């Protein structure tokens, strides 16, 4: 029982991180209709920025918030200056710009802060004794905070989309930017906002993930998380917030369980197993678990 709970908790925690970054991917997809290949590196940059601020003596929570602001500005600026001009050209062009950002941001992080491993402190105390027990398994504050952050972001996003005029506009732009513009929605602002929010969510994911990540904070930290988040967003359905959350949790838990309970496959084939499962699900549901089916308009 204890072992099972431990594995479940580990899976849920990893899954929460995937889900947070997947939410960022969904935000971008809903505004621009593209997969932001650089989302993980935006998060990396923001996390390094937050780490640097902590070094200057800022409290961790303030540094994380500052990192989120930086993520917001960076992502919004990238949308306005780099993505929007090429978006009309082709899907591939947008992807290549994102790849350029991916490579450029990663190298910029290395240039500014170096490639050695950093230790990003957690928002909450995370010493060896800062835990409580749940069915015999230890639960630490820094894992709980990822669950809380995921729940909070999910609720806030849902409220934003369902209860506010801004959210209504965002949905209108996601649905059909042209007709939204005709009804007087400032699409330019909405698109930047969508990317900005994605950047902020990603920054949060990055700052919360690195104290837990095996490689702590280094230039390679975010790539595996980004891959997990991509898979989560696609599994859930690229335009579904709920899908991103559930997709992330499924992937996290499946990977942990496969490692633990399928000795034949074991840790060595963990990702493969998860990916094969996702592909099988997609064969049954080609637009993800909760994604909306696109009607072919001709």
């Amino acid at each position, binding site marked *: 029982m204890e072992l099972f709970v431990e594995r479940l908790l580990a899976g849920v925690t990893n899954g929460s991180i995937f889900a947070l970054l997947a939410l960022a991917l969904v935000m971008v997809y809903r505004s621009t209709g593209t*997969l932001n290949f650089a989302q993980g590196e935006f998060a990396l940059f923001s996390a390094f920025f937050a780490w640097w601020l902590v070094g200057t003596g800022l409290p961790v929570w303030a540094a994380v918030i500052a990192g989120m602001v930086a993520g917001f500005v960076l992502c919004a600026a990238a949308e306005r200056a*780099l993505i929007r*001009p*090429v978006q009309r*050209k*082709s*899907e*591939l*062009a947008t*992807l*290549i*710009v994102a*790849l*350029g*950002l*991916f*490579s*450029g*941001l*990663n*190298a*910029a992080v*290395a*240039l500014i802060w170096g*490639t050695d491993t950093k230790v990003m402190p957690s928002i909450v105390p995370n010493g060896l004794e800062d835990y409580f027990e749940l069915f015999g398994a230890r639960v630490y504050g820094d894992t709980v905070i990822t669950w809380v952050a995921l729940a909070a972001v999910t609720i806030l996003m849902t409220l934003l989309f369902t209860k506010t005029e801004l959210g209504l506009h965002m949905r209108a732009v996601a649905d059909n930017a042209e007709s939204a513009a005709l009804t007087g929605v400032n699409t330019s602002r909405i698109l930047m906002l969508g990317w900005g929010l994605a950047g902020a969510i990603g920054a949060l994911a990055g700052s919360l993930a690195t104290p837990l990540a095996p490689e702590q904070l280094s230039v390679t930290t975010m790539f595996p998380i980004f*891959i997990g988040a*991509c*898979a989560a967003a*696609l599994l859930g359905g*690229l335009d579904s917030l709920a899908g991103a959350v559930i997709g992330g949790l499924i992937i996290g838990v499946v990977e942990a369980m496969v490692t633990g309970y399928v000795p034949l496959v074991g840790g*060595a*084939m*963990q*990702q*493969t197993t998860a*990916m*094969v499962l*996702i*592909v099988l699900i*997609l*064969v049954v549901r*080609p*637009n*993800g678990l909760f994604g909306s089916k696109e009607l*072919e308009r*001709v």
Partner: protein
Amino acid sequence: MSTVTDRERATEPRTERSPVLLAEGSRAYRIVVLVIIAGIIGLALIGTTLSVYRMSQVTAVLITAIAVIGLNLATGYTGLLSIGHSALFGVGAYATGILILDYAYSPILTLPIATALGFAVGLIVGVPALRIRGLYFSLVTLALGIAFPEIIRRFDDFTGGAAGLLIRSQFLTPPSWTGLTRFERGLWLYGLSFVSFVVVMLLVRNLMRSRTGIAMRGVRDHEVAIRSNGVDVARTKVLTFGLSGAITGYAGGLFAMNVGALSPDGGSFTLVKSIELITAMFIGGAGTLLGPLIGSTVTVFLPELTSTWTTGPISGVLFGVTLIVLVFFMPEGIAGRLQIIARRFVRVVPPDHPAARRPTTSTQNSGGNATGQKSVAAGGAEQPPGPNSDDASSEGSSR
């Protein structure tokens, strides 16, 4: 191409912005083709005079170019964005490596098997494309890309696992008929890669100039429309992906022979390689014939170039910036841009093009978009293009 333009400019009086029409099969066209063939042979021969190290770099360019041609078929021409071609490359490479080391195959005989395995894996991955589309399909390819290194590590009895495979040079001696020694295998691999590249490029050219090629591009541009035109979209996608896998697998086989060291880590067969291939395809020009070669040249030489005048992360920043700048100013890629420029001067037209058939009369022009093309003889009209051409032309002139 430019030499032709100069020739035409010199011999034919022509006005601005009216490209010379070069009819396929005409004398001028044949001369151009001969010049190109001579050029290719010339380039190949120049390559043999390079130092071992430079020659090996050119070989690496050619091998990458073949892999990119495979990717280009699926992604550039057919619009199936693949992030998993690193795995198809790896399948070919490991097939060659394992066959040489464990089954004592002579290297060149492993290539058909590497190709066949690439085809088979491509087909299997292509099958989900029947239902899964767009970015969701890219996820399927991503799954392949992620799974491959894990599978290699897991089945280490067979693949050497994380420790990798090392194919030593005595297994890679050129075939005896070449008369080359084992120390000259760089030359042999260069020749093999060069010939392979030319052949693969010709095959892809054939394909793209056939009805199947039109169907593939139709699938990319507008799936509903091409289906309404009678194309079995599902079959086209699956077979394209299979063929793409076959070509990339073949390149993988050559790669194994060239580098000799295969490992699931280190970026030869991981997503890093996929990104490299996609980048090369885009820089060269997605959906162009020469793009893969140009793009591969850039991606093989650029890192070396940047590391000579910068160090460490700056080269990475530069790479990212270059990529973005390129998208802004040359979204069609280098080959795509060259094609657009060349078209201003010369246009190759089918032999039965009405303008090529009627050298002197400029065609009537009632469409909304008058381009002012002026037909120039360019040696055209010297041969009847086909049995139906008379009917067609009489119908045309009767109006």
